[in-house]
């Protein structure tokens, strides 16, 4: 263990600069609910911690031209208190609000959840289903990439040295659109997802699904999109036959592992069940009738 240098810059640019020039191991601190656990367990031994919570741009939820921009330092509890956001993106909000206890909710952030790069991150399948984008500030300026391009594998991201995610952008929400997220955990709270599913739908006339995205968590090295499940939905009204196809497509897409949280068999089976149930919820939220 070494002496940790703690910095709390007030602009994203400065945070990026500190991270870029850091020697040794440097970590960004948003909510800290993963970082401090890793420090405690001795998995990491930072030389530098850059706290982004004193940066105003990371601290707000804004709506510009119908698009929500959620700062990287916004604790997940704040999402549930934003009525407009809940109405537009109930699935994203419920996913973020499922992370940990009330104590964790007061600290954890969606960007932290994303950058921790766990395949079981709760908010990520919902963000991927929602076509969310990450706004990145780095030594070479700003860039915006789809959320699914951030995580490259368990614990690894595509971010380059000095790059800092400043915010998450959600697209404009049209009519008759809704999303939903479900996860499976053994208890009622406090667990990491054994598997999970996020579904985002837009309906047309007569409840026919116009657009669909289905993403699964904890069934592969990263959160995965399941285009076959989306295809099973598009152009249909939701019924048991369609749902069975969604579940089957999800099961085929699963490539999970056996570990302390679940078996291959269980994850595969239940991911299909969750996708089916999440699709049903999203469909009803979007105004579809079963």
């Amino acid at each position, binding site marked *: *263990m*070494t*002496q940790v240098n703690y910095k709390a810059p007030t602009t994203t640019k400065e945070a990026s600069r500190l991270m870029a020039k850091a020697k040794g191991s440097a970590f960004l601190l948003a909510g800290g609910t993963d970082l401090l656990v890793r420090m*405690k*367990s*001795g998995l990491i031994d930072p030389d530098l911690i850059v706290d982004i919570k004193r940066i105003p741009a990371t601290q707000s939820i804004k709506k510009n031209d119908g698009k929500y921009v959620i700062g990287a330092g916004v604790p997940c509890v704040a999402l549930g208190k934003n009525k407009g956001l809940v109405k537009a993106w109930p699935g994203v909000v419920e996913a973020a609000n499922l992370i940990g206890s009330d104590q964790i909710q007061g600290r954890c952030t969606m960007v932290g959840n994303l950058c921790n790069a766990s395949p079981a991150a709760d908010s990520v399948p919902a963000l991927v289903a929602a076509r969310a984008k990450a706004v990145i500030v780095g030594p070479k300026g700003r860039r915006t990439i789809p959320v699914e391009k951030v995580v490259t594998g368990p614990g690894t991201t595509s971010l380059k040295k000095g790059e800092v995610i400043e915010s998450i952008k959600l697209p404009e929400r049209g009519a008759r659109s809704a999303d939903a997220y479900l996860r*499976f955990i*053994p*208890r*009622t*709270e*406090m*667990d*990491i997802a*054994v598997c999970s599913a996020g579904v985002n739908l837009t309906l047309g006339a007569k409840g026919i699904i116009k657009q669909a995205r289905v993403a699964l968590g904890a069934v592969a090295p990263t959160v995965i999109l399941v285009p076959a499940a989306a295809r099973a939905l598009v152009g249909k009204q939701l019924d048991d036959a369609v749902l069975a196809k969604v579940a089957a497509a999800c099961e085929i897409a699963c490539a999970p592992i056996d*570990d*302390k*949280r*679940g*078996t291959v*068999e*269980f994850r595969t*089976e*239940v991911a299909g*069940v969750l996708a089916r149930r999440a699709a049903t919820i999203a469909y009803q939220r979007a105004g579809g009738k079963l």
Partner: protein
Amino acid sequence: MTADTSYTDQEFELVGTRPVRPDGIDKVTGRARYGADASAPGQLVGAILRSPHAHAKIKKIDTSKAEKLAGVKAVITSADLPDLTHGNRASFDILENCMARDRALYDGHAVAAVAAIDQVTARRALSLIKVVYKKLPHVTDVDEAMQDSAPIVQPHIRTPGGDPDKPTNISQISTFGHGDVEAGFAKAEVIVEESFKTEQTHQGYIEPHACLATLGPDGQGELWVTTQGHYTFRNICAELLGLEVANLKVTSSEIGGGFGGKTHVWMEPVALALSRKANRPVKLVMSREEVFRASGPTSSTSVDVKLGATADGRIVAATATLRYQGGAFPGIWGMLGAMTSFACYDLENVKSIGYDVLVNRPKVAAYRAPSAPMAAFGVESTMNLLAEKIGMDPVELRILNAATEGTKASYGPPYGPIGIGATLEAVQKHPHMRARLGKNQGRGMACGFWFNFGGQTCCDLNIGVDGTVNLTVGTVDVGGSRASLSLIAAEELGIPYEKVRVTIGDTASLGHNDTTEGSRGTFSSGMATIFAARNAIEELKVRAAQTWEIDAKHVDWQNGQAVARGIEHSNLGPLTLEELARKSPTTGGPIAGHNEVVADGAGVSFASHICDVEVDPETGSTKVLRYTVVQDAGKAIHPDYVEGQFQGGAAQGIGWALNEEYIYGKDGRLQNPGFLDYRIPVCSDLPFIDTKILEIPNPNHPYGIRGVGETSIVPPLAAIANAVSNAVGVRMKHIPMSPPRILKAIKEQQAGESQVSAG
């Protein structure tokens, strides 16, 4: 002092009421001091280096770099804790568990320790200690460890009655029972037989092990520690460190949960050895990961049960084979499993065989009614299988076969008055049994037994000049016993509850007290308190007689005052305890009562539980909807805390039944040493837990008290398994019934059914 301990039926003024506990304010304001809350001037921080291997030879430990690090004041290995046990193998096992000698026996086994000026330095020092290991083959599964080809955990162990030259992992085989089981099975019209497994669980107390140790070159030391038994800790630490018992003062801190896990010494001798080497106080606190990896969980088991009965439900033969692993050291866990397995029933022919088995896991410790829940899971599940096969109501079946007063227990002695029948009848009448169930919901019930324990106990009761009372006891208060003991002292003396203050004495202030285990706290210290109070009353009567200048024989104690008996003394008004106390400086000095007792005759305890669950057939997830505990308390001194014990035990049992388990990798390392993946129930997992206290007096206690702390963890495993079986039609034989296990069982059942219909 011997006194009559037999039960007398009496009216109580205070016993049975629910006053606020005396240590309450400290505990709701954050003032109460637990193991990690003490500090001493010049204190160092201790830290322990632990084996990353399940089983390994320790070839070399190089501590030189750590010793040179600035701020490091002591580094120790097993060389600093030499063997002073003089051939006492049980003590040597404790020593070896505290610090590995030539081999690391499990993932998490201590191999070296440091004391440094702060946490950062201590952790850095640990990283500078170089240990050269040679990995050895390991075994963590109880059934595998019993195979002939299994890696040997402790080469000196032999199976009793087995080959004296052949090392083995079976350290003990214990057989209990009576009658002729073969003849019994021959008579049986119905026979059921099933095998079960349970995984290892941890007591999961929220407070990690913590102590503050001071030991000087003069051999005098002090230890502040979270423990269930500071006298036992003192004796063991003194033996392992070569100290005189009187020179080590051990003070029990407030204890943040124990459930058996704090009856054992884990790292306290290490803290004392560090302090001795550094000649400064050392604070040593386990991390949660260390608690899971290196302090005793309960056994994982494998159990076979066979029951034979007549067609009308009378059990004519019962056998059980129970295999319990005790971690890397010999235990008594299989023996306790064999003793408890059939204790609920009146059986003509019964036999149980318990195997104690060593594996490469942490040393098993007592966990609340140790070994009984796993045995009950096997037996009580098989009871339901028998009921199904006969076509009989499972409660009826149990009532028909329940033990009663005079029944010869399967573990030997005849029973006195006991409560198993009464708990079953209460279950049968309970509205819970008639509540409606919905889709995918099921109800189960099961019974449980625990011996309870008494043991060595002593206490002092000192009366202050204002008539208030200090009661000093030596049994650690793990769940509210100070309130119960205050009630008992006040009841005996006839004074208000608030006038008594109970303190847990350190080891220098009282004679030896056995550890608070076996549900003995209120039973045994309650008994000692009654006798100490009566002892003080005798002295109060003498003082009153002296004041009145009459013979003490003519003085009675009534409602907190001395009363002169007989018409000739009718002119003498009563003297209250307070009046006598105020006069005490001039009537012979302080007034006190004492008692030393071996509190034999702890009454056995029985419980029957009812549980409703809902199972999601698509995910295997189980929700406990309703739970009812019926248990015999003998006499509930403070009913709130009796209910609390019932509820807490049930909640632990629910966790064990559904989600808690030690998960080992193929490498023999524990994969879930944290509260994230070792899943104890959270608040939203549980319903309110209803309780019904029965009071069938224990004939061997003046108030009829039985221990109440443990029995409540015995029935839940089977009660929930029976409920799940009724909800989704699958018989769960492996605990915990985690969602993957239930879903797999449902799928297998469905596959079996479709095969049957196809065939």
